[in-house]
């Protein structure tokens, strides 16, 4: 039996505990002061005593959260995602997460206090920030399973209302093994059908599943309640709302994922442009399989992996050289297409005569660790981004690996 952490404790000789600011089924959160820097932080303890869950489950979820937050930090962090300072152990050997103190209210508490938001632009800004956070997580192969108002804190930063994602205990990276927690009987209104009824439907989960959740959160901001219904136009529920935003919400929450924005990046763009029409698309043809896919800015190609983030286009790859998020398509400010490599093994583009290797920074670092050098004979370092033109070929891993796509904007 260890002493429960209490106000005034000095943890690891550095953090002075304040009040309990949150308590849930897995964790208990204190505000605290870093006595070395004077900064306000939050300390997250596994909630063994105050939870109805088994000790082992609490520990597993706590560790999962620590791993995910560490992965987010390793990827450079994101302003709309709670950041990790350190994982440590207190004097009793209990794990503690030291995280940024997100000062504000959970989104549902905030809306209960203030009522629905009248300022459409505020709703739009929150939507943009959430889309950006979801894109960031997706690109870094982290699935956030549970986007809903009580997992989002609303805080004021730089004079604007900013959402910050908290609670990563149900998020997983692609390599953490299967989850056994999806045996739910009551499904909230923030999950699209392909997630809520994963066993009963053939609809694929993918980046469009996050799009649905963000759409429902926008309706929540406008109305303060959310139905389970799909394809919701906020105006049908009596919300005062600009037509462009109403159409974005309706499209984002469509039952059929092909009618939604394909990914959070695409949804972010339409919110920024205040124009619900989806961004321009292109196609890629998987030359070995003969299949053609429509792609939108932000779409990704990756390996099918049962528990990982679902790419827009998934490829069976038993050898597992292809990453779960291998390569991402996007357009620049002039509408020109390019690819961004997200993989460890790299991607090649054949443009005109030769093949150009494109490799993410993480991929370059990994090669360097194993003593290889990605620099080619002419001394060029492979870029992370590469522009695409009509008819270019995109080969995953290596041109001889046998997974090649032909790009077209026609």
């Amino acid at each position, binding site marked *: 039996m260890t002493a429960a952490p209490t106000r005034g404790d000095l943890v690891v000789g550095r953090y002075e505990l304040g009040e309990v600011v949150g308590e849930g089924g897995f964790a208990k959160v204190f505000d605290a002061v870093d006595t070395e820097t004077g900064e306000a932080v939050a300390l997250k303890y596994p909630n063994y005593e105050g939870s109805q869950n088994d000790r082992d489950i609490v520990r597993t979820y706590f560790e999962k959260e620590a791993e995910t937050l560490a992965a987010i930090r390793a990827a450079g962090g994101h302003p709309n995602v709670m950041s990790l300072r350190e994982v440590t152990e207190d004097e009793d050997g209990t794990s503690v997460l030291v995280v940024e103190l997100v000062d504000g209210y959970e989104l549902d508490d905030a809306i209960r206090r203030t009522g629905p938001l009248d300022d459409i632009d505020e709703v739009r800004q929150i939507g943009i920030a959430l889309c950006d956070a979801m894109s960031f997580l997706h690109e870094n192969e982290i699935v956030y399973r549970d986007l*809903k108002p009580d997992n989002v804190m609303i805080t004021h930063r730089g004079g604007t209302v900013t959402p910050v994602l908290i609670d990563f205990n149900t998020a997983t990276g692609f390599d953490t093994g299967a989850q056994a927690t999806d045996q739910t009987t009551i499904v909230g209104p923030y999950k699209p059908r392909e997630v809520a009824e994963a066993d009963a439907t053939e609809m694929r989960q993918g980046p469009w599943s996050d799009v649905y959740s963000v759409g429902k959160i926008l309706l929540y901001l406008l109305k303060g309640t959310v139905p389970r219904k799909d394809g919701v136009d906020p105006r049908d529920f009596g919300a005062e709302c600009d037509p462009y935003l109403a159409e974005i919400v309706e499209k984002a929450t469509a039952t059929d994922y092909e009618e939604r924005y394909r990914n959070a990046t695409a949804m972010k763009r339409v919110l920024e442009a205040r124009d619900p029409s989806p961004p321009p698309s292109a196609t890629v043809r998987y030359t070995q399989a003969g299949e053609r896919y429509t792609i939108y800015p932000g779409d990704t190609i990756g390996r099918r992996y049962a528990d990982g983030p679902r790419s827009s286009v998934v490829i069976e790859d038993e050898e597992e050289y292809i990453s779960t998020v291998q390569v991402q398509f996007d357009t620049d400010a002039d509408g020109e297409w390019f690819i961004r490599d997200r993989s460890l093994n790299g991607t090649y583009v054949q443009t005109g005569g030769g093949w150009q290797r494109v490799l993410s920074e993480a991929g370059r670092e990994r090669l360097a660790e194993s003593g290889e050098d990605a620099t080619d004979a002419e001394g060029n370092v492979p870029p992370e981004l590469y522009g695409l033109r009509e008819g270019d070929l995109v080969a995953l891993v290596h041109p001889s690996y046998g997974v090649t796509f032909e790009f077209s904007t026609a």
Partner: protein
Amino acid sequence: MVAIETDVNRPYVPADGATLTATVDVEPGTGSGNEARERHILLCLDTSGSMDGAKLDQAREGASWVFGLLEPDDYVGIVAFDSDAEVVMRPQRWGDTAREDAMHRVEQLGAGGGTDMYDGLDSARTALDSLGYRPETDDAVRRVLLLSDGKDNNHEPADFRDLARDIDGSGIRILSAGIGTDYDEETIRTLGTTARGEWTHLDSPGDIESFFGEAVEQAQSVVATEASLELDAAAGVEVGEVYRALPQAQEVDVNWAGNTATVPLPDLAEREGQRVVLKVHAPARESLGEHSLVDVTLTASGERASEPIVAEYTDDNAELAAHNEAVSLDHRQTVVRTELGKGNVAAAETEVEKMTRIHGEDTAVVEEAQRQTRLVSEGGRTERENATRIVDDSRIE
């Protein structure tokens, strides 16, 4: 596909008989062909003088929310009642209704006068029955959503029981909500229970919108209507103390005809398991071995599923000691919850004492029953309603 599963607390009984507890779990299955089913929703709103202000404002918001949820093929109507009833909007197909027109009618509602809820419900039924000429109505999910903050000026709860039976008999379920502290709890409870819906207490006007919203979404997830369990008891077997445990703890009006009885069930909704608990007296038998005590058959929207309640007669003392405590606890807990819903703390305490004596006070269900009883004895209408529902937070996403 619908399915049922029966269970008993004592799988083995002695030759001279015993009284068993049984549960019948109803699995609604998923809604194949559900899209073709229409919903006929009638909002029955109290507009008596006391509804003026926030309550009526929120009732308007609630109507607005309902309109957002409706599908084009759904039908919606509105009846308002104060000193008498008025059909504000005849049930009409939502796809043929302009939202602005419907909202205009809702905006026009004003509060004043007394409370003739009886006339309100009667008019609601008549309004829904006006769609009876359409063959689709037979399969439709038909609902009256009742909202009131007061007592009927001229009718007693018993009158409402008869009216609710009539309404239920014509295929309409009532979801009844009382708001505030002045409505007659017995009336609201009787309406929801008798017409196979649910009854709800709303603490504040802010709860009105979600009451309407959840009722409509529940109607949209219905996979089978006109559901009931037929109990066919073997000779000498007696059945009693029948309750619905899920979705809400409610006493059941069982209609016996000879050895068979019908237990009416609420409409079956997707992912909403139902449970009925009952006592079965197994008579003395000369021959040992397995005997079917009650044949249970679920009928819903023309589908059927059967499973008997069985017990094995034996003289083996080790076998006779087998006790499936969960089943016993389910029944007692349901009795406790039903009594708490009525505010009968003394009756609930008597049951809890029995539970504690038999199952021990450390049992989770016993602790929960004690906790609920304490909450109700110290609390009010909210606690009484909460006691009738089992909410397992860990299963909510």
